[in-house]
């Protein structure tokens, strides 16, 4: 349903140009959970912005249900890493969740129901009249997730959503995302730099090279669902997959010493 075809993003022109993305292609099918991992600075956020229609790729195109994405599509909702900047501090939790619903053609009762349902599914019903800054970081990110869910997207894009919360909260939020995915039956594209997280959550993991970025490998994850923070991570398959992705990325991180470590250099690897 979601296709990226040869996405490239180049900032500036001439010899000083920065090639953030060189050639990124992958697809996400309906109902799939796809994680994108890559070394830091490989242009993950740039890629997500192109997919979300917030930025135009220099080359290539993004197709959502066969339609080219040129502006933020209605079927798509975005959860940012930085919840404190993405939530409006002057509005209550209720009004933050209402933001994407106000211009939708819905009755007041329907809006109310959507807000109640989405806040219920992230366990924040009691905090509907609080301000975001009265909540903990993890709770704020749950508000942002509820807001995205209330928008009723077909596909949810998440940009390192749990990078600024503590490890325990992170585990809880990962499970929460898996749960709401079952409940809402949505497709999720999840960008992260955390390899464990990507293998734990995904059906497939798209591993990127460092900048200029291409797709290094797409790793299928056939771990059983529902997943469990302890049991799943103890499985031999999990450990193998994690190790495999780790090696792919570590090779990207080590300094370029031999010809075969240079991606796209034209030399047969």
């Amino acid at each position, binding site marked *: 349903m979601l296709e990226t075809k040869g996405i490239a993003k180049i900032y500036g022109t001439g010899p000083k140009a920065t090639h953030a993305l060189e050639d990124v292609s992958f697809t996400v099918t309906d109902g799939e959970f796809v994680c994108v991992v890559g070394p830091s600075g490989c242009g993950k956020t740039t890629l997500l912005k192109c997919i979300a229609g917030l930025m135009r790729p220099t080359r290539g195109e993004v197709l959502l249900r066969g339609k080219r994405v040129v502006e933020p599509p*209605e079927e798509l909702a975005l959860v940012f890493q930085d919840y404190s*900047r993405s939530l409006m*501090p002057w*509005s209550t939790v209720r009004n933050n969740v209402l*933001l994407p619903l106000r211009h939708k053609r819905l009755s007041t009762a329907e809006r109310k129901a959507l807000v109640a349902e989405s806040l219920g599914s992230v366990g924040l019903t009691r905090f509907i009249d609080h301000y975001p800054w009265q909540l903990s970081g993890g709770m704020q990110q749950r508000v942002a997730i509820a807001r995205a869910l209330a928008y009723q997207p077909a596909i949810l894009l998440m940009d390192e959503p749990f990078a600024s919360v503590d490890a325990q909260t992170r585990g809880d939020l990962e499970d929460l995302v898996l749960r709401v995915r079952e409940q809402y039956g949505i497709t999720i594209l999840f960008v992260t730099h955390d390899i464990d997280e990507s293998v734990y959550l995904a059906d497939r993991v798209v591993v990127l090279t460092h900048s200029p970025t291409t797709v290094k490998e797409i790793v299928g994850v056939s771990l059983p669902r529902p997943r469990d923070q302890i049991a799943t991570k103890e499985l031999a398959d999990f450990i193998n997959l994690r190790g495999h992705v780790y090696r792919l990325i570590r090779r990207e991180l080590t300094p370029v010493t031999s010809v075969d470590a240079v991606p796209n250099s034209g030399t047969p690897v």
Partner: protein
Amino acid sequence: MRLRRITDVLIFVLSIVAALAFWEAISRTGVISEKDLPAMSTTFSELWDLMQTGTFWHALLQTARGWALGLGVAAALAIPIGIVLGSSDFAARAFRVPIEFLRPIPSAALIPVLFLTLGTTLQSEIFLAAFGAFWPLLIQTIYGVRDVDPVALDTARSFGVSTFEGLYRIKLPSAVPYIATGMRISSGVALILAFTAELFMGNPGLGQKVNVAQAFGLENQLYAYALATGFLGLAIHVVSTAAERRALRWHPSQRAVTA
């Protein structure tokens, strides 16, 4: 904690008492003659007497009206214009020269022009107050709108929020702290200029009363009216601080106060 509160109040009261006592002393001891500076007690009793008259309250209301209308006109113009200039690089560049040219003109320099054009009318007082109050508010609004968080704007855009809706749901609220600061600065400027218009152009109000008292050598009255203007400024400050607190109860600077 309690002790700290008590000391705070004590310092507040004592500083006022000390200032008033100092005033009383330098006048009574003749450091500055009572003719040039009437004693504190004389001035306050003069003010008390004036407060029994309708003329005093009328003058006070006229000055307050000049302030309110001047600030109102300034806000009605500066905030929308500031939003436009803050949102559009093109508009900002197009208007930079006229703004930087007009802004440093001292408002008092307009008095002769106003004399010749609008004369001693309420309009001229409002114009003067509004002119002075316009600039700080305009600059604050421009910076406020520019400082809006790009993540907040991207969030709104990704949810299909229109540019116009984003303006009043994201840009304007996030500029409110800047606008509030601008209002505080402009409020003081507007009061000073309303008073100035009355003092130099003879528009009715406290400034005119001060001018008349000076012309007739009524020092006690002169100081009493000056004191009244000070109290008007203080009252405006207290009310606007409370309003600012309410409008910004979500802002980090005010959270400690509300929570």
